[in-house]
């Protein structure tokens, strides 16, 4: 008994996931997730030689819901509540590009005040998402304070969104033609107050987390993605901007009111885990400026949504529209055959695109760097699976 062969047979009978690699067991296969506390609903298999990762195979699909198929069974309005499920923390952005595409297909003009409220909601929602991501990145690297602080500050933005939309997380706020309801009274002052507070907090985040020597050691020069490879792999969002490509849909292809705003695309050139974790903070800071400008420029009165027919439909055609979400470009390709239900909806999400970089970055890293690399990719398993 207890030759390697026997152990292998025995483990197979028990249904254990021990994979025989070679006679001397030099390579070991590890399954990360889906029960790993930090993996999310996602599993990837890695092989290690000593403590170096030599192989990585992502296995998504644990939360695949068939969103694209579901869209074909509902009309364009009924699709909104289930389309925000893939990323409930960023639900205004995932319905934003959907609404833009439907507006293009049906031919709806959004009232100006509605465009502003939409942009405010999507910027606030991006902060909620990024703070959630930052909290998990903190706890993933063993920094408990960085878990608690962003989670606490995230509540401020959730409260603002609750006042604006009526729901805390899944808002179903964007609809083709505008937004569901108007801003409440006193929203502007409350929003400005929270942003001032949050700007102070971001300085504290830098002191305790980003300037922490332990955090720096774990992330600097780790998992470097070069500019050329970033473009080749087609990554997006903060991963792309951390590698020195200043590409942001809000600037590249401004939608709604973004071409009237004054903001910079934040990027870094090093392409390591530190850059990928720092760019989201820079983005949040820029978002604060954007929200202030939006609140200053918003028309004081007016409609917030266009009148819609009961079953909105347009002529047969197709549209591809995208917005910048918390995880990068979020595009919808919608084909309409002239009926109220979409003929085909294809959702191109940042997480799915950034996943391609995971095996590329992990191979050659030490096992201890795996959490730092994995979560720096801003990967949201539920969104990638759709």
């Amino acid at each position, binding site marked *: 008994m207890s030759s390697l062969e026997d152990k292998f047979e025995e483990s197979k009978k028990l249904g254990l996931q021990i994979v025989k690699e070679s006679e001397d067991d030099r390579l070991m296969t590890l399954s990360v997730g889906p029960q790993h506390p930090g993996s999310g609903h996602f599993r990837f298999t890695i092989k290690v030689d000593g403590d170096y990762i030599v192989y990585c195979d992502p296995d*998504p*699909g644990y939360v*695949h819901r*068939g969103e*694209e*198929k*579901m869209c074909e*069974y509902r009309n364009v309005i009924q699709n909104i509540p289930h389309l925000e499920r893939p990323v409930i923390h960023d639900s205004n952005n995932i319905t934003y590009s959907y609404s833009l595409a439907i507006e293009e297909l049906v031919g709806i003009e959004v009232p100006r005040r509605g465009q502003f409220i939409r942009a405010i909601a999507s910027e606030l929602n991006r902060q909620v998402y990024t703070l959630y991501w930052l909290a998990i990145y903190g706890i993933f690297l063993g920094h408990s304070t960085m878990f608690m602080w962003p989670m606490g500050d995230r509540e401020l933005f959730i409260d603002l969104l609750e006042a604006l939309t009526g729901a805390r997380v899944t808002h179903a706020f964007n609809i083709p033609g505008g937004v569901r309801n108007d801003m409440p009274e006193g929203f502007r002052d409350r929003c400005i107050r929270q942003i001032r507070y949050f700007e102070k907090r971001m300085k504290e985040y830098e002191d305790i987390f980003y300037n922490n020597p332990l955090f720096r050691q774990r992330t600097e020069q780790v998992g470097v993605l070069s500019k050329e490879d*970033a*473009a*080749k*792999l*087609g990554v*997006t969002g903060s991963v*792309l901007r951390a590698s020195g*490509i200043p*590409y942001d849909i809000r600037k*590249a*292809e401004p939608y709604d009111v973004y071409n009237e705003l004054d903001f910079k695309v934040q990027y870094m050139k090093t392409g390591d885990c530190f850059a990928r974790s720092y760019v989201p903070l820079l983005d949040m800071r820029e978002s604060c400026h954007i929200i202030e400008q939006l609140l200053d420029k918003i028309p004081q009165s007016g409609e917030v949504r266009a009148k819609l027919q009961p079953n909105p439909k347009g002529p047969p055609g*197709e549209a*591809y529209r*995208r917005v910048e979400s918390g995880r990068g*470009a979020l*595009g919808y*390709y919608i*084909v309409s055959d002239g009926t109220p239900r979409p*003929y*085909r909806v*294809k959702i*191109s999400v940042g997480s*799915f*695109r950034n*996943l*391609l970089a995971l095996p590329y970055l992990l191979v050659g890293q030490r096992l201890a760097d795996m959490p730092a690399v994995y979560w720096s990719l801003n990967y949201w398993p539920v969104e990638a*699976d*759709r």
Partner: protein
Amino acid sequence: MNVVFIKPLRIKIRVEPGDIVEVATFLRDKMGFDHAESAGGTDYPKDNQIEMIYHLGSYGREDLAPHILALTTRTSREDARLPTLINVFKSVEYHERETFEMLGVYFEGHPRNDRFLLPEDWADIPPLRKDFKIKGR
């Protein structure tokens, strides 16, 4: 090759399956489209065809940043086979794999035409084909 439509910032062209690798290489090397934002298929049972569509974008050329070029090709539903674009645009790797399982299009030259998002024991037709109906609806 024929141009299906030209709209502001969006162009859609359709090519024969045999030409797609050559056209994609031209778009990458001569036009500056360096990545695919999205790639997916649409089932058209009326024409007995499946349309594969690649939405190409550019990070390298600033003037192309807002543009999306849709490169499409069609294959028959019975024997759905297309050449892969993985050697031209690395970024289509997972999108093509997803299309394989969702629409049953086999990509010749793709290293892995296998299960990706669906459950391992999936034993039905590809779910995004129009003849797949959600049970009970």
